């Protein structure tokens, strides 16, 4: 009754190819963005920003990047953590070299650097597929983290081996470090993530997105109808790494403020992002957000229930959390390999027919 597309007739291809062709979807997205931009900043505090909203946005962006590579182009990567590190260290060095440079440009350049590194590690994808490629990305994971840990130039030779963000102003408003307000950090991150998410949506439904999906679904046929596999795969690696790199830069500069490579960007980080796209939905922009929300919120919920409600000590709660994450992954892969995004879609289809089930 409320969610209908009947009567919404399209009279031009532009209208039919709009990002959200159904009016209700369009209004829903506009509504969410309006709340996120206009309402949330007035209620945000330290806890909400640091425990929920910033990690949600940053992980959603990283997951979006990995989803482009894995969900859309079918190339599995276990190196997401390391590519986030590349973005983080690139932003650190760039701010060091050019303190006056606008932080948006720093972010973009960090993304470009990560894209370049991603393409180098993506080169083997032309010859190797599936698990073999996953192992190749593990090479990136271990090598890059080792490099950031061992090569002093990357952390300016300081004794702790950590990198700490400098205070950065964005058009006069402090967005990094302890002096930045939660609202400023949140709004800046939200803007970047929203713009990149809409761009991703555009890319995946255009020529390049179709090329990626063609490679994913049947690489040989794709090649024989004139898609260049190397170009398609490398562009997926580049765009994916760009997103992951920007996410890494935000993770370091805005969210955490200082990081140590071995802990912040280890292989568990890679798995974490992979889980987000499995739970959220492979090959779905919306899925990256649903998955990130799920994987950020569920541990908080579990901790509150187990430590607060049932009196577990936090070590045990950590173990149970790992166990439950594993069970959830298996559950989703068995019951709904397309993740929360598909459940959402099914719900909408039901709603479309409601109240007449057939």
């Amino acid at each position, binding site marked *: 009754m409320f969610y209908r597309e009947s009567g919404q007739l399209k009279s031009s291809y532009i209208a039919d190819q709009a990002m959200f062709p159904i009016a209700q979807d369009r209004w829903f997205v506009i509504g969410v963005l309006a709340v996120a931009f206009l309402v949330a900043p007035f209620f945000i505090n330290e806890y909400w920003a640091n425990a929920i909203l910033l990690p949600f946005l940053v992980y959603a962006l990283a997951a979006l990047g990995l989803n482009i590579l894995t969900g859309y182009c079918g190339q599995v990567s276990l190196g997401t953590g390391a590519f986030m590190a590349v973005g983080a260290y690139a932003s650190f060095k760039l701010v060091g070299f050019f303190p006056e440079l606008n932080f948006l440009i720093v972010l973009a350049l960090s993304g470009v650097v990560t894209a370049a590194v991603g393409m180098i590690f993506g080169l083997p994808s032309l010859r190797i597929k599936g698990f073999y490629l996953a*192992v190749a990305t593990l090479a990136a994971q271990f090598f890059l983290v080792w490099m950031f840990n061992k090569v002093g130039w990357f952390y300016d030779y300081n004794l702790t081996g950590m990198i700490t963000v400098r205070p950065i102003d964005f058009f006069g408003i402090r967005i990094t470090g302890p002096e930045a307000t939660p609202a400023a950090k949140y709004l800046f991150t939200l803007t970047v993530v929203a713009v990149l998410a809409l761009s991703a949506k555009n890319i995946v439904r255009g020529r390049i997105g179709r090329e990626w999906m063609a490679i994913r679904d049947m690489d040989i046929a794709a090649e024989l109808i004139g898609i260049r596999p190397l170009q398609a795969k490398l562009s997926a690696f580049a765009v994916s790494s760009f997103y992951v790199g920007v996410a890494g830069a935000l993770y370091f500069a805005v969210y955490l403020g200082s990081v140590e490579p071995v802990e912040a960007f280890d292989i568990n980080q890679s798995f974490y992002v992979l889980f987000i796209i499995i739970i959220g939905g492979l090959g779905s922009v919306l899925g990256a957000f649903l998955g990130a929300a799920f994987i950020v919120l569920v541990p908080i919920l579990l901790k509150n229930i187990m430590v607060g409600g049932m009196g577990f000590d936090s070590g045990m709660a950590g173990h149970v959390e790992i166990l439950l994450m594993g069970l959830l992954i298996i559950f989703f892969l068995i019951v709904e390999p397309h993740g929360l995004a598909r459940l959402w879609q099914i719900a909408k289809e039901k709603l479309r027919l409601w109240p007449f089930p057939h």
Partner: protein
Amino acid sequence: MAFDIFLLEVIISGLMTGVMYALVALGFVLIFKASGIFNFAQGVMALFAALALYDFLAEDGWFFAVFGFTLPVWLAIPATGLIMVVLAWVIERTVLRFMVKQNEIILFMATIGLAFVLEGLGDILFGSDVKPLDIGIPQGASDWLLDNFNLYIEQLEIFAAGTAAVLVVVLAIFFQRTRIGRALRAVADDHQAALSVGVSLDKIWVIVWSVSGIVALVAGIMWGSKSGVQFSLSLIALKALPVLILGGFTSVPGAIVGGLIIGVGEKLAEVYIGPMVGGAIENWFAYMLALAFLLFRPQGLFGERIIERV
């Protein structure tokens, strides 16, 4: 002369480590051959087996708490083997049978989930502290080699190499000569065809996961005796991945040779290149070696070249 002895020690120690890698890789190959599943949980299975074995042997374990006595080693090892078989059966019942038609990447990711389940379960049941595992394998350097050849080599490593060699021979016989082994190979070649001649897929899967669970137990014993039972043991599994790339995912001899190459290459690199670049390169050297190798021979040392068709 002293230099040559040192080089020899490095190579032999690399070979011994390589045997250990090969042990884990073997578990991967078995499952991959029979089910096309790349079992990421293999390393955690080794950890889980070692934890269970420790539990039977130690006085701070569940077994002692419940029954009031501990098992002798000769009984504890088969008991743990039994646990691995039960585990294989549970995995088949709760996970694998629902995923028969999924594509391989989805299956792979499911085993990552499985790895997390086993890790969480192991921590909850047995605690996450480092546990010493002592089942009477001789420790320390071999005096005989030290006296006669001036070589410093751990007895444990020699023992591990011997065990691995025996295991490989047993597995080879199992695959080539027994009825179940032939069925396994049939399934590996073609699921549909094997089903149509009456090979039962779920039974095969339980068997093959059991076998690789027992291989994991052996690997868990060796690694656990060497450096204690702890979470890092499951990371050894990740080291087995470059081994598989070198050896090919479906080749038992490939897993052995690949393990040896990685073991030796890694040790040599750590000793001779490591100091130049700040050390700890064994974290990634194996992967880079495998990656370089992949570019020239994508199907691995012993893998077959695939002719693609449309």
